[in-house]
């Protein structure tokens, strides 16, 4: 069976960057948005390591802010290099998705 984890990781990273670029947000909210857009089986635990990775690569940064529900929450912001990474992800995704769609619509002769 196809191992989706590799494809998911790269794709999710791009999508998380996009979500954070639109609005300052936190882990649980990102997860809800991703699920809302159709990513099935996504949990906070799935995206948390990716957020750690993006933060380590300085594509996002975070700060704790008070939360109405429980302890303070970590809110994420996009950095300048994060915006650059997002732009290159968008451009690459457009080109690759067209190519993949063409290949997947090929019919057996």
């Amino acid at each position, binding site marked *: 069976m196809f191992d989706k984890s590799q494809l998911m990781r790269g794709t999710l990273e791009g999508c998380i960057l996009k979500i954070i670029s639109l609005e300052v947000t936190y*882990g*649980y909210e990102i997860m809800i948005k991703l699920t809302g857009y159709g990513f099935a089986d996504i*949990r*906070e*635990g*799935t995206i*948390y*390591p*990716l957020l*750690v*990775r993006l933060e*380590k690569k300085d594509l996002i940064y975070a700060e704790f802010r008070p*939360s109405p*529900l*429980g*302890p*303070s*929450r*970590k809110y994420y912001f996009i950095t300048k290099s994060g915006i650059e990474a997002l732009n290159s992800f968008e451009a690459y995704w457009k080109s690759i998705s067209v190519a993949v769609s063409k290949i997947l619509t090929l019919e057996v002769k």
Partner: protein
Amino acid sequence: MANQLEKLRKENNVLDKQLSKENNTIIMDMVCYLRSSDLCEYDIENIRKELTGMALEAQLRNENFNDVAGDDYKALCDELMKNGRQKTLYEKALEILYVLVYGIGTLYLAEILFSSTIINIFKFGQFAMPITSGFLVSTFFAVVIAFSVYNYFTKNSFELSNHNRKTQIIFIIGFTAVWTVVLLFRVFMGKTVLWSINFLYPTVFLAIAFVLIKRLEDQHVNNIFKTYK
């Protein structure tokens, strides 16, 4: 300036108290397992804070922690270990030195208190301390065992926590057996004096080394904290 790591640890200890018993065990196992990695201590405490936050919010939403984090906590930790910031050589060296100086210092203090040295000091005003082969061998074994036990516990936190009785019994028997060997070394080789030393020299050396390492560590953690801010 107080060590930011200690401050964060205290904050986390306060947060822990709000966790349900089940979630507390899960978070404890996860943090314990993370300690077996090369992630730096400050980052582990940050991760602990975030995981605790996730668990507390899940509790308030009447959800289980596995609804939020997934069922495979070990896999989540492995992902975090892979993606987090790794310890630098400097951080590793400081950590090892701290454990060594603290461990050896404690054993050295115990040797002073439980050997004839303490009597010689107060009764005869003599500062000479006999260094026996028993003390050296048992100190060496104690340090090696402490490192091994720490590694075993952290790497197997999930298995040990799963109430695997067989593993726990084997561990307790092994642990007791090894410590008995160390104590036997100390008792039976205790009289073989290798040389004598003024007990103040190692005391002063260990105290200075401890203070120096602690200051360097505090400085380093506070620098990391500033870059995070």
